[in-house]
Structure formats: structure tokens, C-alpha cells
């Protein structure tokens, strides 16, 4: 089973990310909430480098909780 690396991202970055939208960026090869059921199979069949980015858009918690 594939495992995922996890790095704590600075809170400011999280907030920015949460606010930013990955939607409608397919011209940049960015796909939001696509292939969620079988993303690893899609990754395995790709000839290109793939970035898997899993985030929570409602997470606005800062470092003080």
C-alpha cells in the first residue's frame, strides 16, 4: 500500500491554500476532486510526474488552536 509523506505547512500557507481554489485550473494540469476513488491507479498509469495534494478547505485553525 502506498504511503504518503506529510510535512507540517506553516499556518499562513494553509490559510492561503484554503482560500485559494484549485478549481478550473485544468489548463495547468491541476484537477480538483477528480479520480478520488482510484487516484493511485491513475497515478500509476501516468507517464508524467504527479503531485497528490490533499487538503481541507474549511480548515482555518491557526497554531494557537
Amino acid at each position, binding site marked *: 500500500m502506498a504511503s504518503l509523506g506529510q510535512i507540517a505547512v506553516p499556518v499562513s500557507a494553509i490559510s492561503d491554500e484554503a482560500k485559494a481554489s484549485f478549481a478550473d485550473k485544468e489548463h495547468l494540469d491541476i484537477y480538483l476532486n477528480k479520480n478520488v476513488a482510484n487516484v493511485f491507479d491513475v497515478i500509476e498509469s501516468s*507517464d508524467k510526474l504527479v503531485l497528490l495534494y490533499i487538503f481541507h478547505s474549511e480548515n482555518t485553525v491557526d497554531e494557537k488552536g
Partner: protein
Amino acid sequence: MFLKVLEEIKAGYVTTYAIDCAVEHPVYDPKVNLKQICDREREKWQPVFTLYKPPEVRTNPYTGKEMPVEPIYYASNAITDPDVKKWIMDNVPDYSQRLSTSEDAEQFEEERDIQKVYLFSAKQKVPPIYKALSAHFRNRLRFAFVNLESAVSKNLASEFGVVDWPTLLVKNQFATPDDSSEKHYIFTGKMKLPEMIEFVEPFALAENEKKEERVIKSKTQTTVNRQTDASGYTMLTTVNDLEDQILSDYFAGLLYVAQKDQLTHLEVLEQLSEEYGDYINVALLVVEDVEEMSADLKREFKSAKLPQFRFYPNLKTGKDKRAASFEIIVPKGVGNAAAFSTIADEIESGYQTDVKDVSDKVYYSVGAQNARDGKVTVLYMYEGGSKI
């Protein structure tokens, strides 16, 4: 941050799948633990991100097995735009083939029914833009990289009339000496990915005409050597690779050296890799030509005996590690289970460890001393014969 970097990089280098856990998804991919990640408590939420690099050679040339996609974890302490960009750009897969010698060029030329793209460059490394181009047209075009300083660069540059570096060109593979069609086409646009894609596209095979993977021998060797098999062992192609993969590391090492057509214990190696791969460097050295490699084998192992398993103790590096290494004798003709057991016993007895088998009194003494020395003591208790 990621979005900004991805916008800066533009399309063609990396495909991003962004999954928002705030959205309810009907099905989650269990292979990447998506459900568990998304279900974490919100106050503990941190984004999770991983790059997945496809293997540059899809099939293990020695075992015929598919090579796995490689997860690349972000390793830098800081998460800055330049670091993230570098992390991505450094890992763009490279499907081009480096032509260093005339043999490489001849092998690359042998395939006749697919058009060839050449990049002549003064750079030592294949630029990410060319890697991205090669990924875009994988198996629809073949890509060569010719470095200015390589032995073959002068001849190839002369053949194509290349005077400027870098130069990107497509050799018209289907032109015959008699016809009037161009023998090659030189790219005159800006070195931008969309322009380069537009230039080579007309020469590419259609998606449904894709060729099987084919790489020149030197590419197989250098590439496979940087990849690991699905079960986690590293593949070495020369004896010198031991230096990087086994001897330079404080971790213990286990090496299986065997002839290409006599890999009788490969399954055992896979099992050992699964069992011990987290803390032992497990490697396979395939000898394609025994005569050619004989001198190297004797120099490294004091004998050219094949096949053999060797154990390299942990906590040593370089010459010391080589000197302390030893062959694990696996009796001839034994089955995989017996071979595994023999090798596992040797690994466990050869592995250097601080673990002491102690009584409760000794434990308190060791624990007290460690505390005075500022060390942490871990106590593992067991019953009867169920040791660690």
C-alpha cells in the same frame, strides 16, 4: 503556496490531483489511505502532499517485472516557493536517452519506424523542459540528449549541421537518400514547452500507434540503478555501484550477486527485502557477462563465485564495512524457505545492536547509568521463547 508555484511552472511538468477533504466524496481510494486522511480531526489537519515519479524504465530488465511508481517525499525543512519548485523540477521523469558514445548513437538509430528528436546542449544535465517534452510524447517519439563534451557530440553535430548549442531538431527517419524531403528539421522558436510541443507534434505517432518502450543499453543500466524494485531492493549494474548503495551507508547491507540467467534466489531476495528492507539496504547485482566482470568481482569479493549472498554489517562504512562483510553460505539445492531461514539467521546474528538481554536487576542498573549519561532506555519485555 503550491498553487502559486504550479501556476509559475505552468502546464506540462507535473499533473496535480488536488483533493479537498471538506467535500464529501462517495468513494475514497483505499490505496492511498484517503478516507483515513480526510477523517482526521480538524484541529489536527495538515495538508498532505507527495510527488509520484513514474519509472523511467517500466520493466525490470532482469526480472521482467513492472517497476513501481516512486513516491518522493518533501525533504526540505522549510516550505518556500523556490524549495517546492525545485522539489518538483528535480523529479520530472526523463525519457530521453543520453548519447555519449558512437555505440549509443548507433543503438538509438537502429529503431526505424519512429521519428527521433535530438537536443544538443552544453548543459551536463538533461534540462527539465526536455524531460517534460519527452514525457509528453513518450513512445510516440524517441528523444536523444547530446552533451557538448560527449565523445560523440562532434560527429553528430557535424551530421546535422549543428553550430549553436542548444539546438533542438527532429531527424526525418523516413527520408530516403533519393527523395527530396528534408533530412532533418531544426527548431527555430523560443525554448518554451508549448512551442517545442507544437514543433515536434507533427512528427509524433498517434496515441494508438505508440511503440513499446525501447531504450539503449547504457540508459537501462544507469536508470535501473537509480530505481528500486517493487519489493524494495536496489538494482546494481556494476561492482562500483556498491560504493554508493552499500558501503557509504551506516545501515547494514545485504547483496545478492548472480548471473543474469541464474537468478535462482530472486524470490528469497524479495522476501528478505520485505522483511528487512526498512533497516537494511538490500541490493541485487546482476552479472551479465561473467568474463567481463570477473576481475571486478575478484577485486571486490576476493572471488568470482556466483551466485552469492553477502552481508555488510551496520555501523561501519567504506573500507571497514567491506572488510567486515562476509558471504552467507546457502547450501546448494535447498528450497526458498530454507534459504530464507539461513540468510535471516545470519542477518540477525550479524546485526550490531545495543540491545542487551537483561534480568530486572541488570535493567535497573543499565537504566540508571543511561539516565546519568543522558540516554533513553527502552525496555522490551517478553515471555518464554518469544524474543524480539
